[in-house]
């Protein structure tokens, strides 16, 4: 029974679901519209409160977060144009639900980074976990290392650029937007994709259901050259293009017949 003692004494939860009444720690050094703070001894909620306070109330435009320590859910829900630098690694769900910021992460990110991002730029200097850029609607996600599985699952817009390898089911069910992979990708690329474009410079282990090679045109060249130029990635390698084969598009055929049956 000893083991059950203290079960209700939760003091800190890495999901950030506790401490709803926590206050802004106000530990930043602010210099004009720039600020820097050390996150080492702060909880997830305190770090996010500090970021909001700086960006929304103090008029700061450029924040550097030291020692993020791979904590989860940092830099989420930032809805203003600003610049944020994480001087280290983030855990799961980093920089999700953002609209506007330009974020640089100097380390690695865990699963589901930049989930449901609306606009802005996130540059990850090292590797990223699975589900990177899940369901993003806009903006650019640049991963300079490798990514895990299911990158850009359910993507609805924006661009994901990965310099290293990518895992299985990349672009699974993507609906719009672009994915640019400069190295090999795993099995099931673009499985069940609805629309959008995937560019791969390395080897594709296997294509997913209804993902087919696409025809290259000038707009593809323009896009890739532009993105490489913006992010200083050097001369682009040669890419293959993959799009949706639209063989799974059978909703329109089914629906009228069903309607007839109903009538």
């Amino acid at each position, binding site marked *: 029974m000893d083991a059950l003692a203290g079960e209700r004494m939760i003091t800190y939860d890495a999901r950030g679901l506790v401490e709803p009444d926590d206050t802004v720690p106000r530990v930043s050094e602010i210099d004009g519209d720039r600020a820097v703070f050390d996150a080492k001894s702060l909880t997830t909620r305190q770090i996010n409160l500090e970021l909001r306070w700086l960006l929304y109330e103090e008029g700061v435009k450029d924040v550097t977060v030291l020692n993020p320590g791979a904590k989860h859910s940092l830099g989420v829900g930032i809805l203003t144009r600003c610049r944020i630098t994480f001087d280290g690694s983030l855990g799961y769900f980093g920089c999700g639900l953002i609209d506007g910021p330009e974020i640089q992460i100097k380390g690695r990110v*865990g*699963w589901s980074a930049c989930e449901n991002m609306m606009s802005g730029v996130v540059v990850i200097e090292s590797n990223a976990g699975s589900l990177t850029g899940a369901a993003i609607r806009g903006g650019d996600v640049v991963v300079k290392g490798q990514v895990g599985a299911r990158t850009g699952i359910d993507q609805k817009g924006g661009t994901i650029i990965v310099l290293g390898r990518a895992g299985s089911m990349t672009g699974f069910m993507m609906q719009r937007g672009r994915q640019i992979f400069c190295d090999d990708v795993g099995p099931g690329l673009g499985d069940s994709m609805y629309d959008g474009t995937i560019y791969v410079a390395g080897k594709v282990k296997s294509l997913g259901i209804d993902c087919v090679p696409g025809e290259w045109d000038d707009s593809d060249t323009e896009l890739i050259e532009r993105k490489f130029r913006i992010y200083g990635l050097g001369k682009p390698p040669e890419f293959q293009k993959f799009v949706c084969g639209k063989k799974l598009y059978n909703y329109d055929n089914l629906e009228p017949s069903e309607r007839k049956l109903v009538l």
Partner: protein
Amino acid sequence: MCGIAGIIYRNGDGEHAVGHDMTAMLQSMKHRGPDSTGYALYGPASELVVMRYKLADANDARDLEFARRLEHHKADVEARLRMLGARIHKIEKETAYAYRVTFEYDGELKAITDVVEDVPHAEVLSLGHSLEIIKDLGDAEQVAKQYRLDGFVGTHAIGHVRMATESDVDISGAHPYWAYPFGDVAVVHNGQLTNYFQWKHRLERSGHRFQSECDSEVIAVYLAEKMSDGYSLEDAMRESLEALDGVFTYICVTGDALGVAKDEMAAKPLVLYEADDIVALASEEIAIRAIVDHEIETWDPYEGEVMVWTR
């Protein structure tokens, strides 16, 4: 959800605070599984056999006869060990219901387990020359305190925080699982196996016993059977990728190696940190950062990957 972690020191000797380090890793992943916590720790290899067993569960009802029954069963276990020719060195009472026994013995480990587990409510948690499995309800700090794991010195370890999905919240359902009857082999698993009953029935037919209703136990027993057929740890793990259906990331440890395998969908997470002196892996990087206090280069292994490190 569950969280798993593993750590292996690569510089040979056995003087590392694995108990302390594993507690730090598991505590930082408490949110992945608050039901129970388990450790498979490897101390310095010894000539003696070390056995961890339990006679009851933390949440068993405490009736009037509870203490007396435990004493009776404990004496029974001791008598049976002696009957099999084991020369007992020490019996340590870790909690009210869990014990650690060291003894000299050169017969088959299977015989020991079968005879001990014939005692009512007895379960052998681990058996071997260096492996010790400790598992109980609660978070890592509670279990570590209860079993005094902070001072455990050793070479490598795996651990697990459990969010029960398939079976009861009790010690039998907690990970790690010892690979009965294979000494010094243990497994932790994050995921679900869909062909669990098939494999359980197959393995039962070839003489293995299952102590829990938890699907993860089948991985340990499957690997044990493969290794007793002459497969290396790595080959046995590669075979398991085909044999096991479902989603999984699991870590298997032996007396001198630690291996990890991921299913073909890479559905369950794992972060890996490889340095010259240490390999640490966990469901989340935050667990690795609990023992490495500087920025590190980590990555996620890919689908269908099997990796093995030796110390």
